[in-house]
């Protein structure tokens, strides 16, 4: 894969990747670092990509999620960006908020531990076992946090309607 092709594929994914990193790390600078490091790793590891251009989005997302998790592990205490600032960063002007904007608002209101599990599960695409291993908690705890998050989200959704 050449430079131009790589840049083209990267531009198509960068917005999504940045949001995922922000959602996992809750810190603008760390999300930017994760994206840069993921880009570097993807560039040097592009020889290992199987499936061509079609496989690129899932492949680079996986690299980004791993990179974000590496940052999360290396910094035990990440200073989160101010919630309002975070919301401004993540909010897309003019987008249909019926589902998407609301869902993020709900997720943001979950506690940090529950939010991490939800984000890794539904944005990062990690299995429950992988989440447990990455966060250093038991599988039971992951299931319990996910169930609690579901209940809270369900409540918030029904309150909203």
């Amino acid at each position, binding site marked *: 894969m050449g*430079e131009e092709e*790589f*840049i083209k594929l*990267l*531009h198509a994914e*960068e*917005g*999504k*990747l*940045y*949001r*995922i990193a922000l*959602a996992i790390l809750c810190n603008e600078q760390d999300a*930017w670092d994760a*994206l*840069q490091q993921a*880009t*570097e*790793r993807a*560039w*040097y*590891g592009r020889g*290992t*990509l*199987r499936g061509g251009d079609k496989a690129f989005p899932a*492949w680079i997302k*996986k*690299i980004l999620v*791993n*990179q974000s998790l*590496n940052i999360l592990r290396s910094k035990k205490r990440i200073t989160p960006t101010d919630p309002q600032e975070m919301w401004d960063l*993540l909010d*897309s*002007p003019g*987008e249909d908020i019926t*589902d*998407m*904007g609301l*869902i*993020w608002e709900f*997720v943001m209101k979950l506690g940090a531990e529950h939010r991490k599990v*939800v*984000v890794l*599960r*539904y*944005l990062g695409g990690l299995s429950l076992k992988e989440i447990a291993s990455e966060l250093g908690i038991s599988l039971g705890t992951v299931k319990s946090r996910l169930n609690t998050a*579901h209940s809270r*989200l*369900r409540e918030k959704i029904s309150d909203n309607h």
Partner: protein
Amino acid sequence: MGSESQDLELWLEDSMQRWAEQGQFPRDKSIQLERMVARMAHQEKRRRKIRAVFSFVATFIACIWLLFTNCPVAAANYFSGPTPAYPLSLSILPVLISLAVPFIVWEKSAGHKINDEVRYE
């Protein structure tokens, strides 16, 4: 209950993925990423050139060394005479090693350092 939970999971996954896809990315950051890739591509080309030059030099020295060490032996065997001593062959080997070692070290340390913890598949 199980089906309801499954529906919620599907809805969550779908909504969050669509939400992520609509992410806006600052133009200046996008340009920075582009420059970063261009810089890495340039470095990669440079490294490839240096590697080619080093390989050529190493191969050339190895060939010369083999020529000076083996040809006299073959010639001496052919004529059943004594093997002549070639001090040059002994002096080339350390040169070859002293060129190869820094090159290997440079190859290992230069450029990217891929963390084994990252799983690409």
